[in-house]
């Protein structure tokens, strides 16, 4: 009887505390690491922007596509790392707050790879002021295709988890970006030093996946407890 009472009370306590802090991640662990790159670094195709003098003027050297961006320290940028599975069933994602921005500047997308929560606002910004169309080619999310011929911002949301939703501009065939839509905030994109960190994880064992647009995916199983930081590197090999 006493045990039951304790369980009920603690259950109520958990519910109450969950209600108090709905936007906080329910954990303090971190998975961090580097995306290493081995093998031959492929040359990205050069972009001929002669049809778009406004964009061309933003570059000193001929810009290239960003399919494979190898950092000076030999790591790989633009890798989307996320928790693919392993979250406890009791886990409740925080309500999507704020917006994620995708900018079209110099006829390229910034960032090239990004993540967003289901229901979170994506601000699609055109800083170029020339015609871009932005086409999202999701299959779990409804695809869309909207036109932006001015300096302007359009907003869209996504309804279903999907890694990845390809984004593209058809006026400028070289413009590609990748959007990871997730039901939780446990994702990161490797940056200019090739590192990533997924913070605020509840204790547990997770399948962490690293995704790259050319080299595909790699997964690792990571167990975290408390507020510890576990290191998990991934290595992609140039082909």
């Amino acid at each position, binding site marked *: 009887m006493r045990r039951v009472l304790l369980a009920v009370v603690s259950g109520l306590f958990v519910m109450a505390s969950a209600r108090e802090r709905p936007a906080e991640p329910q954990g303090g662990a971190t998975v961090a690491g580097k995306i290493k790159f081995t093998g031959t670094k492929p040359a990205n195709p050069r972009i001929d922007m002669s049809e778009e003098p406004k964009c061309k003027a933003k570059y000193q050297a001929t810009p290239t596509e960003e399919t494979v961006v190898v950092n000076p320290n030999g790591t790989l940028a633009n890798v989307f790392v996320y928790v693919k599975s392993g979250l406890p069933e009791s886990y409740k994602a925080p309500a999507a707050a704020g917006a994620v921005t995708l900018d079209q500047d110099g006829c390229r997308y910034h960032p090239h790879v990004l993540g967003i929560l289901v229901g979170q606002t994506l601000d699609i910004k055109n800083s170029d002021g020339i*015609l871009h*169309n932005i086409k999202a080619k999701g299959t779990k999310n*409804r*695809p*869309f295709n909207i036109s932006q011929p001015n300096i302007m911002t*359009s907003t869209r949301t996504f309804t279903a988890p999907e890694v990845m939703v390809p984004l593209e501009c058809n*006026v400028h065939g070289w413009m590609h970006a990748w959007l990871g839509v997730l039901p939780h905030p446990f994702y990161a994109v490797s940056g200019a030093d090739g590192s990533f960190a997924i913070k605020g994880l509840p204790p547990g064992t997770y399948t962490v996946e690293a995704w790259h647009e050319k080299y595909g995916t790699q997964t690792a199983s990571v167990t975290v407890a408390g507020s510890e930081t576990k290191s998990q590197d991934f290595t992609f090999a140039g082909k």
Partner: protein
Amino acid sequence: MTARSRRIGVAMLVAAGGVPLPSPLSLVAQDTTVGKKVYVKWCAGCHGETGAGDGPAAAYMLPRPRNFTGAVYKIRTTASGQLPTDADLLRAIDDGLPGSAMPAWRGRLSDAERRDVLAYLKTFSSFFTDTSQHVVALTFGSEPGGGTNAEALKTGRQFYDSIGCRKCHGDQGRGDGPSAPTLKDDAGFPIFAADLHQSWRFRGGATSADIYRRLRTGLDGTPMPSFSDLIDQKFLTDEQLWRLAQYVRSLSPARTPEVRDVIHAPRLAGAVPAAPGDSVWARVDRYWFPLVGQVIRKPRWFAPAVSGVWVQAVHDGKSLALRVSWDDRTRSPDTTWLGFERRVLETVAGGDDSGTGRTAGAFPDQLAVQFPRRIPGGMERPYFLMGAETDPVYQWRWTSAPNAAGGGAAAGLARGLERFDSLPGAPRVQASYDHGEWRVVFTRSLATPDTANELQLEAGRAIPVALFAWDGSSGEHGNRLAVSTWYFLALDQPTPPRVFVTPVVAMLLTLGLGIVVVRRAQRRQA
């Protein structure tokens, strides 16, 4: 249990269980069991058993048949990214999709069959049962008047430029913009930016209102985006978008060109115009002849790039001038389209060729005008597809290839698709290419010395004529071409003098008699 009572039963069950009905339209007679039967019989050949747009005929088509599994539809009244309404889907089934292989099914299938098949094709995607999908048709205002006057069209043109239509559709709207050679649809197949001069081939209809709707909704699954955000954010007024639609509409003939069998070549008092840009052509009737892919001889070609040609003809009693104009996105050979050409050749199956000769190359654009060797007495004509070994046809051929012998033109005898024997006397030819349009003028004397091989043109006779076109940048050469059937050319005869004299004599007689009658009456009164 009849289908009808089964449906009512299902409806009652659903109502009793309190399950929310997805949309009121699903109450309309829709039976997916019957729908499946109709689908398998009439639709699966192109759209595939599983609705993936991969039926046995699909590989021969460009554009490819719709893949129903993604529930992505071009022609909708809903915002970009939304599902189509049932009415949108039914319209495509009922009226077909002009400019594609999709025929109109109204009249071929009953009302119930068409609704049942609509219900069935929605089962291919789970999006249609996803209750979080809100399917709401956009509200479209009514078209502002004065859509054909110069001021409205000027406004429309202004926005055509400012919002970047020309990037894909080109400066004059013939689908030849700088981004056009890079375009792909969502499945990765090559896709042409629409030629805005051929509104009768627009998938969603040819009216200004249809065009306005496509601007608002975009064509999902294609590079054509929706422009609704521009109105929502007040970059553009609704009226301005209507003006743009009206401008686009104005690029095509007011009415869908009807195919007339006989080209009338009026007789001119002066010499015939040899230049493609001569002002005479603006005053002469033009005739539209649709072309289709050559699918009789191997290798067959199912994706002809030239959908038809406009023909005009005049003569002066001594010479004939024939102008053929057609829309072609590329002045071939054009290396910027080589990648697109390769994708077209990879996409469209020949079915019966071993894959040889399907490499992209810098082929020229070509045109052939075909006549029999002599005007037939009756209806007997040589085989339309470039004659036969024993019964050749007389042809004029033109090619855009620089430095071709005879300044790009030749005359000769064709004995089937594979054999062309040049004759010494070629017609004179002048060609121009401007913003996606070829204009080629052939001129030749009505009579020539080689009466055995060269057609002797005569006024007042029905002269059989057929036309063939190749677009080099679509990989067309040899048997891969667009063909027409036989039509007729008729050179107007000079008007006999009595046509002019008789009315004058009659008028003078009437006047004279009138004067006599009046004089007599006056005399009597006096």
